């Protein structure tokens, strides 16, 4: 290959390398700011900016959703399967909000409770027909029953008890 072309190839690769390194450094420096939300573990470890508004992300703990009185206020617990974080929200929740569903909430801490101004549902990467979801849920209940050594009437599992709990 002629030297002029060779030089141009090296120049371009060098520019690309420079741009890559610069971007990597910038992204590493901004690591905390790029995180869209903090997990309950982050809060426990003091990594979350609890003195101001931030986003909390995690799963809605099973059996934790509780309506307060007649209003729109809902209390629930957000978990990352390591730590629990009680939360409270007044308003209309997204359709996908349910136990075991991933959520991202915007708000701030008040006396150990995360008071949310906005709750968004996070969808995971699983796409499947309802029959498949039901079959998986049934298989799981059966497995659990077998593991417990009793094959009595299985508790009918809701479709929400499925891989969407994966986070």
């Amino acid at each position, binding site marked *: 290959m002629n030297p002029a*072309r060779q030089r141009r190839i090296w120049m371009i690769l060098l520019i690309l390398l420079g741009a890559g390194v610069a971007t990597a450094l910038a992204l590493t420096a901004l690591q905390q700011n790029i995180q869209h939300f903090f997990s309950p573990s982050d809060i426990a470890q003091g990594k979350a900016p609890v003195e101001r508004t931030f986003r909390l992300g995690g799963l809605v703990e099973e059996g934790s959703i509780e309506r307060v009185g007649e209003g729109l206020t809902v209390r629930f617990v957000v978990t990352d399967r390591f730590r629990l974080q009680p939360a409270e929200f007044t308003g209309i929740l997204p359709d996908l909000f349910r136990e075991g569903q991933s959520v991202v909430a915007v708000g701030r801490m008040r006396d150990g409770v995360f008071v949310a101004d906005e709750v968004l549902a*996070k969808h995971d*990467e*699983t*796409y499947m027909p*309802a029959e498949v979801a039901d079959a998986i849920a049934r298989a799981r209940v059966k497995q659990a029953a077998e593991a417990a050594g009793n094959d009595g009437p299985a508790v009918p599992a809701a479709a929400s008890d499925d891989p969407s709990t994966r986070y």
Partner: protein
Amino acid sequence: MNALTLWFHRMGSPPTFYAFAERWRPWFLWSGLLLTVVALAWGLFFTPADYLQGDSYRIIYIHVPSAWMGQFVFAVMAVSGFVALVWRIKLAEIVSLASAPIGATFTAIALATGSLWGRPTWGTYWVWDARLTSTLILLFLYFGVIGLSRAIEDRRKAARAAALLAIVGLVNIPIIQYSVYWWNTLHQPSSVRLFRGETTIDPSMLWPLLLMAVATKLYYAWSLLGRAQAMVLEQESGKDWVRQLATADRNA
């Protein structure tokens, strides 16, 4: 010289390229249209509804292929830009520039459809998470390439400047791809995995998606060749073969 290199050298000649594009464009167009119709009909009417999202998940058949194309076209733009910069091949400059509006359109479609899906699913049209933001940056990089190529008077200088921006912008592609793994994002990770991990979309829903991915590439080939033809004619406007083409056209 092997057959492939020979083919590339022949393609570098404008009249040969023009004839090649003229011959193959209808094939790309009709096969692309046919595949689109089949894939969309399959995806919209013959796949089961999702267990959680119901029917709204069907936007995946537009959203995901468009997002893939946004990144694929950018890569094509950068690679042909690289060839243009190193070997100074005019046709590579043309392919690079002609790709930009197509890729920008696909990226815009991905952003718009994602936003429409986000409203019922997440509860919002837009969030500034890493995946959405890096995709928006991709759109702006396309705008940058288009703008730069129009801002410089000298056509070849413009093409080279735009090519350099496309190459530097390539850094953004892995960021888009891996944003959902590197950071906490509202956007979910990929459902379709080619290399590592398992595909988490049910096979009954997957096939129309893959067909759409092929269909969008055929459309791109058709659109790219058409744009490139127009640019080749403009560039070669004084040459004999173009004049002959024009006279033949008038007589026809």
